[in-house]
């Protein structure tokens, strides 16, 4: 390991923070795609120079950007500045931002509507890509979780995207409804031991799992209890905020739900609550230590009505056993007058030793701990609101 690269998506562009392995001196590059919302930026595990970015705007829609040189330069896959010279029938051009729901007779129907806020049925309408999850073994393959909730995949480096329609085609699809942030598929967990197994999470439908590479899906929400829905233990309808797993132990999943921190040891077949002594079990991100599959991190937020930390104190909580016992990690974090939020994709870990933990806030700070969370310092303090943080250990 020679370097750490932190990929930050914000409301007004992307930033890349780099450091050597000691993680105490950082350079900040950006903004890339200035003025655009960057929901997520993530690098390929097998080719760290290959990075995908989701760029979007309420004015001009969705753009997919790709870098093949570690973020130095970017382009829209399939587009080329020398378009006039490209042969007819050559590489498809200008479709890398084309996310079209599958309505084919074979795989796409009946997929026409989902539940709207007023209980009526509403057509699926693509809004944006929330999350990009590059394949664990092929840099040209990447999954995209989108709003309205669906899972897409590219196998040509982002030039074209195709829906894995079995998820949206689950019989519960017409019952899914949006949460306050829209109906988004925001979490994609790939299983390093089984390429056919994928776990996804949707707000506010819940968690789903495929065992056949995305052709068929099943809800995995047994054990979740959500007082805010008509049937608190319903098969679907839970507002799951994030799910994570350690690569060495993919059957153990950790979940931050709208309320409650949960754990599953059977790949999501059943869940039990591990909120324990947290000051609040509401929150968005959840992360696992890179070398210890039982060490878990969350950032408690006061409530769904008050999206800021309890008592105005920004505290990361760590459980060393992945259970109900949590310790507050406060050294270097503001312990008064702090009213920022930490969003679901805005926390990540590196693979250095000791493990580094990173998170970004809606106040524009990106914090790092290079000692497993024991102490923190801000890499930057005044970025636009941070939407996502990912880390590459190079």
């Amino acid at each position, binding site marked *: 390991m020679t370097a750490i690269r932190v990929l930050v998506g914000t409301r007004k562009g992307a930033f890349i923070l780099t450091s050597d392995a000691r993680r105490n001196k950082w350079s900040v590059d950006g903004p890339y795609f*200035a003025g655009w919302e960057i929901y997520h930026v993530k690098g390929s595990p097998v080719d760290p120079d290959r990075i995908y970015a989701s760029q979007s705007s309420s004015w001009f829609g969705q753009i997919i950007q790709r870098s093949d040189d570690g973020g130095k330069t970017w382009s829209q896959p399939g*587009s080329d500045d020398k378009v006039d010279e490209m042969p007819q029938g050559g590489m498809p051009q*200008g479709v890398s931002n*084309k996310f079209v729901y599958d309505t084919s007779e074979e795989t796409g129907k009946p997929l026409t509507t989902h539940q709207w806020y007023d209980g009526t049925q509403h057509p699926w309408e693509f809004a944006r890509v929330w999350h990009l999850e590059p394949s664990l073994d092929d840099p040209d393959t990447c999954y995209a979780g989108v709003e309205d909730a669906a899972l897409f995949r590219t196998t040509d480096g982002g030039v074209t995207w195709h829906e894995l329609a079995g998820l949206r085609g689950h019989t519960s699809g017409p019952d899914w409804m949006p949460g306050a942030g829209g109906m988004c598929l925001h979490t994609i967990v790939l299983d390093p031991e089984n390429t056919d197994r994928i776990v996804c999470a949707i707000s506010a439908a819940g968690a789903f799992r495929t065992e056949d590479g995305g052709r068929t899906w099943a809800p995995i929400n047994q054990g979740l209890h959500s007082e805010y829905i008509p049937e608190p233990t319903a098969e679907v309808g839970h507002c799951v905020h994030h799910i994570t797993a350690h690569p060495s132990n993919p059957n153990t999943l950790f979940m931050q739900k709208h309320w409650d921190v949960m754990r599953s040891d059977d790949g999501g077949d059943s869940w039990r609550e591990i909120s324990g002594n947290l000051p609040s079990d509401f929150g968005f991100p959840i992360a696992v230590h890179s070398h210890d599959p039982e060490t878990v991190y969350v950032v408690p937020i006061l409530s769904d009505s008050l999206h800021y930390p309890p008592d105005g104190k920004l505290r990361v909580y760590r459980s060393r056993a992945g259970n109900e016992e949590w310790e507050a990690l406060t050294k270097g974090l503001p312990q008064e007058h702090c009213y920022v939020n930490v969003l679901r994709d805005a926390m990540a870990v590196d693979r250095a030793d000791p493990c580094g933990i990173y998170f970004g806030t809606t106040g524009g700070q990106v914090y790092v701990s290079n000692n497993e969370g024991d102490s923190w310092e801000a890499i930057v303090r005044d970025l636009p609101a941070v939407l996502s943080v990912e880390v590459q250990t190079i």
Partner: protein
Amino acid sequence: MIRVVLPFHLQTLANCEREVTVDVDGTVTQRSILDALEARFPMLRGTVREHVTLQRRPRVRFFAAGKDVTHDSPDDELPTSVATGSKPFMIVGAVAGG
């Protein structure tokens, strides 16, 4: 030669100047200008109008020779001054937000 003025974010996306030119065969309309623009700058496909429906995005407006033609038919013929290049066709990101 048609002159097309792009909003800031589409200029950066297409890596071009504020004003670009396109050639249109036949009648000059919103549709024929946008077709020509997207042919020259494929990265703009899906940004001004939806990929599949080709409907204008809600926060995008069109001006031709200083007149708001946003809600005109995309197949209406545009003024001669736009067709001859003496006046630009403007694509504008609507002012919205706080």
